[in-house]
């Protein structure tokens, strides 16, 4: 069978539909992704917003604990949890920056600030997520010891997750440094984390009387 293709088609063939836009991975552009990672090139203002969000989320956990007594306790406990996080950010991290400078670690103030706000965001997100469960426990459990264990357990979990985020970020930056700097960082980072844990627990001990049972 001979087929003679038409040299010039009388009617232009219909245009092919435009290709469908590539499917966006749901995990890559979520609000959570922005909060925990964000862009590397943005400035202090974005880091400040990230810290503010972290504080806001941790405030929810504090308010949930305060529900045990209600009234003013909600307000005071809501402030108590962020106080522990802020104490680490404002007291421990600046001190740590001096230690890092002494060790000649290739970490500038902004990189340290970003590692700090990201760690705070991790802690805030976990604490905010645990707030409804915490509210259930503090309202329905009669004995104080369960509330203490549950409350400090949640705070320690959030602290451990924040510490993991912080040490990973610092570790990545120190990885390419001199052996001396790496050796010093291997001592300084765990020491800082211990200091930050003790400092935040001390602040929680003072500001969260419902968890300590001291009224």
């Amino acid at each position: 069978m001979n087929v003679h293709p038409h040299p010039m088609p009388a009617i232009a063939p219909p245009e092919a539909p435009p290709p469908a836009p590539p499917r966006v991975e749901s995990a890559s552009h979520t609000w959570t992704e922005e909060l925990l990672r964000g862009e590397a090139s943005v400035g202090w203002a974005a880091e400040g917003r990230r810290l503010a969000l972290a504080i806001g989320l941790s405030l929810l956990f504090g308010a949930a604990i305060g529900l045990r007594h209600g009234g003013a306790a909600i307000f005071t406990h809501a402030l108590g949890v962020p106080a522990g996080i802020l104490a680490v950010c404002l007291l421990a991290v600046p001190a740590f920056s001096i230690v890092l400078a002494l060790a000649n670690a290739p970490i500038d103030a902004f990189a340290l600030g970003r590692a700090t706000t990201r760690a705070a965001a991790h802690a805030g997100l976990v604490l905010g997520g645990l707030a409804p469960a915490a509210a259930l426990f503090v309202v329905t459990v009669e004995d104080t010891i369960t509330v203490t264990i549950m409350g400090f357990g949640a705070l320690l979990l959030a602290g451990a997750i924040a510490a993991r985020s912080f040490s990973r970020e610092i570790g990545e930056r120190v990885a390419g440094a001199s052996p001396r700097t790496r050796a010093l960082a291997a001592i300084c980072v765990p020491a800082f984390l211990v200091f930050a844990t003790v400092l935040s627990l001390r602040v929680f001990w003072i500001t969260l009387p419902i968890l300590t049972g001291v009224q």
Partner: protein
Amino acid sequence: MIDVALLNRILRNPAEVARECRDDVDVAPIARNALFAIAAGAALFGGVVGAWHGGPQIAFAALKMPLVMLGTLILCAPAFYGVAAAFGRAWSFRTVASLALVAGARFSLVLLAAAPALWLTIDLGAPYHAIKLAAAVAYGLAGLAALSLLVRGLGDGPGKHTTIALFVSIFLMVGGQSAWILRPYLGTPGQKDIALFTNEREGGVAVQLLKSVRELAP
């Protein structure tokens, strides 16, 4: 309308349903059907548990069991969201909630399957402690079925085992406390009065567990 094929897929092919939740593909019907499965499965199992005492206890337990399941999922979902994000799975809340609902549906469907066996155990006159044990075994099996879906849903990647361990711990603690505050379901031997909620002040579930451990210890 209930999508039986979807419920069948939740049982037979949890990896596929979990992937759909993760990719945010048609999660609204998945969530709707999962909610139905949770409510129906837990209510029927609750009714069977309440059948040991009989009378109004059947209705009370059938009403409270879905409340415990749904309440626990509502309270746990934000925690799951936070923990998953902290361990490298920064998904949307919708994704996490749909995964939790589907896992809950699988849990309830297994409870539904266990309900006739439990009812037969009660009907044959098994003692109180045997029924408690049978119900606990059913819960354990249902938990394993839900866990296998959750494991597939989390996918591969760093922090998977820690995330699962934290999910399970949070779910057990919140679920235990939710169940505790809405007790009784089975009732106790010799109990005459049947109440929707107990008035006894017995501390929390953790205190009771500690007491039981102390009593069992030599």
